[in-house]
């Protein structure tokens, strides 16, 4: 099957300093791909660049983004805008601030319907109620007239999802959709997203720092570190035999990994600020660092579907390392 979305060799810089380097991945229709990484790993910036929402001083310096076979980066802005909110939609991390405080929920959902589906205002409002119902908001007719500040965080995120759905997207980008929400609400929202995906057949890009969520809701995932993809594979592969020491570290820091632990593992150090370095970006924090790590690293295949940006990945040492970690 052909990829719905294909990102190749994407490079993004803020001014002159690079924040995303050589990011490549593909997404098939109906599939959910997780993008995992710490804050500052470049995952949100990647998502914004797909939507064409990168704001100054961020700009794409190299690479291509192809959506339904169209090169988005050479598409005129007017056509690109036509895709936004209809063919591709995005929901964000902060439902509290993402809705416009001076318009009602109905007006904000209706706006998408009038814009992309040519409805008049009356019809749009009636239709908006249907979408509210689909995202599980009770008493939708009444909620339409509510302002965002009258709703809870979870409700607002549902409204955001309804707004995204209203454009009937083929691709939904969810950037940390539950990070700002209560734990109990998190699961509800993610379950809703996966149910909706089954109904509509849209593809999803689930961006999160939580590997656990990816395990549950995605089929494949890419792990990003310091603006680079360090590992990619099916969720099963990543969990069973992670090839990159960073992925291994992330797994170890998950509470469900292993049995009763006195304390959770945490990767020492922080993401480097300067990304202009030679060699592996993770070297400074890696427990297995060797001389070879300081030369530039390439994505090396581990299996047919898994690859990692670590020289050990294909030399069979990956498995040893993985076992050593457990």
């Amino acid at each position: 099957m052909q990829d719905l979305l294909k990102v190749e060799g994407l490079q993004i810089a803020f001014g002159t300093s690079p924040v995303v380097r050589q990011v490549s991945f593909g997404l098939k229709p109906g599939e959910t791909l997780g993008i995992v990484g710490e804050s500052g790993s470049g995952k949100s910036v990647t998502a914004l660049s797909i939507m064409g929402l990168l704001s100054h001083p961020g700009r794409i310096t190299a690479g291509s983004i192809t959506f339904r076979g169209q090169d988005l980066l050479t598409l005129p802005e007017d056509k690109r805008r036509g895709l936004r909110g209809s063919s591709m939609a995005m929901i964000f991390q902060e439902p509290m601030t993402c809705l416009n405080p001076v318009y009602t929920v109905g007006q904000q959902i209706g706006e998408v319907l009038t814009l992309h589906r040519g409805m008049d205002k009356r019809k749009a409002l009636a239709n908006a109620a249907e979408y509210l119902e689909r995202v599980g908001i009770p008493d939708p007719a009444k909620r339409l007239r509510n302002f965002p500040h009258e709703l809870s965080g979870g409700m607002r995120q549902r409204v955001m999802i309804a707004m995204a759905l209203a454009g009937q997207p083929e691709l939904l980008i969810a950037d940390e959709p539950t990070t700002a929400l209560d734990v109990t609400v998190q699961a509800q929202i993610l379950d809703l997203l996966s149910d909706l995906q089954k109904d509509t057949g849209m593809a999803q890009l689930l961006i999160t720092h939580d590997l656990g969520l990816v395990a549950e809701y995605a089929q494949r995932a890419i792990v990003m570190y310091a603006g680079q993809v360090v590992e990619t594979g099916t969720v099963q592969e990543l969990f069973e035999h992670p090839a990159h020491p960073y992925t291994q570290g992330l797994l170890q820091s998950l509470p469900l990994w292993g049995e009763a632990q006195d304390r959770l593992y945490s990767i020492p150090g922080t993401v480097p600020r300067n990304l202009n370095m030679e060699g592996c970006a993770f070297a400074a924090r890696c427990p297995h660092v060797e001389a070879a790590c300081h030369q530039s690293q390439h994505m090396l295949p581990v299996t047919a579907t898994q690859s990692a940006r670590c020289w050990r990945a294909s030399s069979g040492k990956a498995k040893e390392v993985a076992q050593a970690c457990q």
Partner: protein
Amino acid sequence: MLKYIVKRVLLAIPLILGISLIVFGLMHLAPGDPVRMLAGREAPAEVVAAIRAEWGFDKPFFSQYLLWLGRAIRLDFGKSIATNLPVSFLIQSRLPYTLKLNFWATLLGLTIAFPLGVMAAAKRGTWVDYCSSALALVGMSMPSFWLSMVLIIVVSVKLDLLPTSGTGSWLNYILPATALGFSWAAGLMRMIRTSVLEVLKEDYVRTARAKGLRERAVLVRHALRNALIPIITVLGTWLAFMVVGTVIVETIFAWPGLGRLLTTALLQRDFFLVQAIILMISVAVVAANLLVDLMYAWVDPRVRLE
């Protein structure tokens, strides 16, 4: 919503009382007898005595104030010493000119400030931004009397395009309204730029873009509507700001409005008239602020709930 309005109106009452107390107290700033001042320097003794009796100046300060306030509420501010006409009549005959001038100046100010302020914010860091910001700074720093003089010299005297005085035709309004509206527009423009810039950083603006709205719609429907909230607060100072300009511009353009009435009254030491004009304008400012509060509730749904 109704509760909010009622609360605002009730809060305005002590404010107006405070204002009236200060305005009345002003007369007691005079060195010596306030009655002599109110009556005029050359007034004969019996006139002074009559005024003293009529306004209760032989009684304690507070009873004087209550007597004056009681008449002021009924719009009875006494008689102008210089013209011997009732103060309220004088004000009534001048008010329309001032209102008309202020209306056009405000309209002019808004039509300059909004487009330029919003454009400067949207095109931040471009020449549009720099030019309008420079214009705003100059406008804010230029004394209105000087702007009036320059306008008269250049437009009326040198180019002979527009009349310098008179009120008959709409041509007469152009220069004074420009002189009055421009510096207000300058301050407003800066404020609009700042608050639109602030709003453009908000997450919901990104949401609006993610919906695929045209940049123009993002700017006007989503950014400007929210930016209006702080802008409206500044509009509250509009009347207070216009008052200064009105006094000066009316004096230079010989405009028969309240501002010129006030300067003449002050020069002729016609203090019954001065009291009344200041009180009236201050109460108008209170009313303008009330109006702003109501607009606030209209623009920001979060206020309506309180």
